């Protein structure tokens, strides 16, 4: 039993670790692949068109210096990694590329990608299409987002050469909703009193859903979840990760080596990816737009108070004993959030560790371990006093 669950897990992990494999196979056998950058690209529409959507992502092996030739040092290193993989040709198998406006650096990167097509003789990635999706919750933004989503559909129809049929969209919505529901269920095995899924595995599983075909992913995740209650309980201090996003697991691994378990996070490669379902009772375009529009925003698109509210809510729900704010260098948005987030965490009696100006890869492993160790030890020492989370003890 446990073996079966492990083998579905290892397949998911493989999809995460070899993140281009499924897409390369797809483009060799089935059809077109579409890379997406940014978290507002509605995968439903791409799936409905018969494409395989794949998230453009760096890896811990990416040499970000290649992207840095083109990008500003004021852009965060994750963008440098993603950009590197595009310009170095790792995504030359893609048929199309869509960028959305998840952050200022990403918007600017879109201009740069497009400008490369304009000024360089040879580029190794498709001409990018921009999906302009606004984040303020004003009605005018909701209408704008609907129109841009229709533009995206028009573009998809140009790519496929045929109309995008509504029943295909409805079908794709069901598939993606199932993915989200399953991931949400997985999340419950992290947040519960006795977590059985580590942060590293969770990050890999969530990530795998962006690198492989969704129906296959859903089947594997179902198999894994069926058996997960038989897995051993993971002991350790319960931590929540906020700040910048993570598209490789180096940092999570460093934490979980120190007798701690990551029970939640609020970045876009974590729980935000599966937050909120598309309403299946309404017009499919309305449903899709609303789902992407009304989720809680990532730091880059949210006010400080929105981030404070979502962090405290999530941290309490995850019964976290401590929070780590991990922020890449030049990732300004979470740095603006931090001082106010700390105030609320102080009020809740939840300690927080700020790891600021971080590189894309863990640079000083020894130094990091030392800081993590101190932080975790301090939580352990104080855990008997730490009864602020819904009045429960956390150890």
């Amino acid at each position, binding site marked *: 039993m446990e073996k079966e669950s492990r083998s579905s897990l290892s397949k998911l992990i493989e999809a995460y670790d070899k993140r281009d494999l499924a897409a390369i196979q797809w483009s060799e056998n089935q059809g077109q692949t579409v890379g997406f950058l940014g978290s507002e690209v509605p995968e439903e529409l791409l799936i409905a068109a018969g494409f395989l959507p794949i998230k453009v992502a760096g890896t811990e092996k990416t040499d970000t210096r290649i992207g840095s030739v083109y990008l*500003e*040092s004021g852009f965060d290193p994750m963008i440098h990694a993603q950009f590197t993989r595009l310009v170095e040709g790792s995504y030359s198998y893609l048929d199309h590329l869509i960028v959305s406006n998840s952050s200022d650096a990403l918007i600017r990167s879109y201009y740069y990608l*497009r*400008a490369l097509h304009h*000024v360089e003789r040879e580029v190794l990635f498709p001409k990018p299409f921009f999906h302009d999706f606004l*984040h303020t919750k004003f009605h005018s933004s909701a209408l704008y987002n609907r129109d841009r989503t229709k533009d995206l559909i028009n573009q998809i129809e140009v790519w496929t050469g045929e109309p995008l049929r509504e029943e295909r969209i409805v079908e794709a919505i069901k598939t993606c909703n199932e993915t989200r529901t399953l991931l949400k269920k997985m999340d419950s095995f992290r947040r519960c009193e006795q977590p059985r899924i580590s942060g590293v595995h969770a990050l890999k599983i969530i990530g795998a859903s962006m690198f492989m075909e969704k129906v296959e992913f859903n089947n594997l995740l179902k198999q894994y979840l069926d058996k997960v209650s038989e897995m051993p309980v993971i002991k350790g201090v319960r931590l929540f990760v906020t700040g910048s996003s993570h598209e490789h697991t180096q940092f999570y691994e460093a934490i979980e080596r120190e007798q701690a378990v990551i029970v939640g996070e609020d970045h876009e490669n974590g729980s935000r990816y599966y937050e909120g379902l598309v309403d299946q009772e309404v017009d499919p375009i309305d449903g899709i737009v609303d789902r992407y529009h009304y989720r809680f925003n990532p730091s880059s698109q949210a006010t400080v108070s929105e981030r404070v509210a979502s962090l405290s809510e999530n941290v309490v729900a995850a019964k976290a004993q401590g929070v780590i704010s991990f922020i890449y260098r030049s990732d300004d948005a979470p740095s*603006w959030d931090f001082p106010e987030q700390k105030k609320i965490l102080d009020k809740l009696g939840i300690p927080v560790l700020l790891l600021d100006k971080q590189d894309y890869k863990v640079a000083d492993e020894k130094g990091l371990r030392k800081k993590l160790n101190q932080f975790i030890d301090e939580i352990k020492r104080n855990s008997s006093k730490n009864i602020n989370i819904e009045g429960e003890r956390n150890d």
Partner: protein
Amino acid sequence: MTEPHTSAKKDTRGTQRGTASVKRLNTPKLATAYQKEWFLSLREKVEAGEPLAFVNADVPQEIFRAMDIPYVVNQWWSSVCSAKQMSPYYLDLLNEHGYRQDLCRYCSLSLASAFDTEPEKGPWGGLPKPTVAVTRLTCDSQSKIFELWSKKFGVNFYALENTVPREIPNNWWELAPDKWEQLFEPHRLDHMLEDFKGLIRFLEINTGKVFSETKFKKVLQLVNEQAEYNRKTRDLISKTKPSPVSITDTVPAVMVPQWQRGTQWAVDIAKHLYEEVKGLIEAGEAVCKNERVRLMWLGRGLWFNLGFYQHFEKKYDASFMWSIYLALASDAYARYGEDPLRTLASRFVGMEDMLHMPPWNSDWYVKEAKNNNIQGAVHIISDSCTMSAGGTYFVKKAFEEANIPLLQLHADPVDSRGWDNDVMTAKIEDFIENEIGVKPC
């Protein structure tokens, strides 16, 4: 003349201070005197109960003008604090409140000054308490800064959205004044129009003021007149060798009225600048009579150290005669159209593209470099701002293709704490001597 090498002095708090520039023209003096008067009268009005809006540079100030709502521009206030050598003190305050040292220094000075327990000790008695705050979401930090700031004062804030173009136009500067419907995609203009309507309603409710369509049309007309004078001034300077003025003259002469645009005073001062420059040319005056190098300063002005540029005039007969400020005021502001609010939207919708996005900005820089017979460009890049660098790679490439030497320098234009005058001077000297090939006089 001040010699920045020797006069970039340390103040009592150990911070390197910049130098003020030597004034060649009377217009900047008039402008700076006016802005102080204006600010003091604004204080009085606000203390007497008038509303005050605190707005970001890329917010349509014409709307506030038409509604008679006094406003202070975030970046203008930054430049004032910086020129008064107060940025180190304010930025230190921000750091004491938990914000890291290199966080958005260009736009956070006003927020920083709000942490001051003695705000009245700020420039000209400090910023008075605002009624509303308005920004535009052109980078991730704007909504953070403005929300934190507005909470500090317990006032409402409005965030205008920013949309992204899909098309790359050729020669946007030719289309902008009259053919902007062709230049900007209609859905972007439509959205901005809606957003402006929302802003007007927000201001009506929060300030009790009225939006006068008649006044608005007048304001738009005045802004165009101001832009026309700026264009004439720019064209005059660009074709005159040796250059009659340097950017230390034109930056304050253009920027102070830029924040007053839509007033008769701003038109008059733009006209005054034009006439003064023309007078200088007629009298045979120049920055360097024996001009050997014409230089471009790409990026934000060095507000705390405007005197910096004068060293190169003396040593090399090199004039920094071009900055984005006059050039943008000439090419990016004038708009003519039937529907006033949509016409205004066309002024703002692509501002970010023109300034910071390649190839919009790089094409324009090269066009300006050629028109001004530029021999070298110094591009200042602030690493603490995602926005400002604006396609470093593409700017470099565009200059390479145009065969114009370019030096890219990393420095923060408002934070004097990290400015090393000697190093920066040496880099520019090396550039002039070895890339442009001009030796000291």
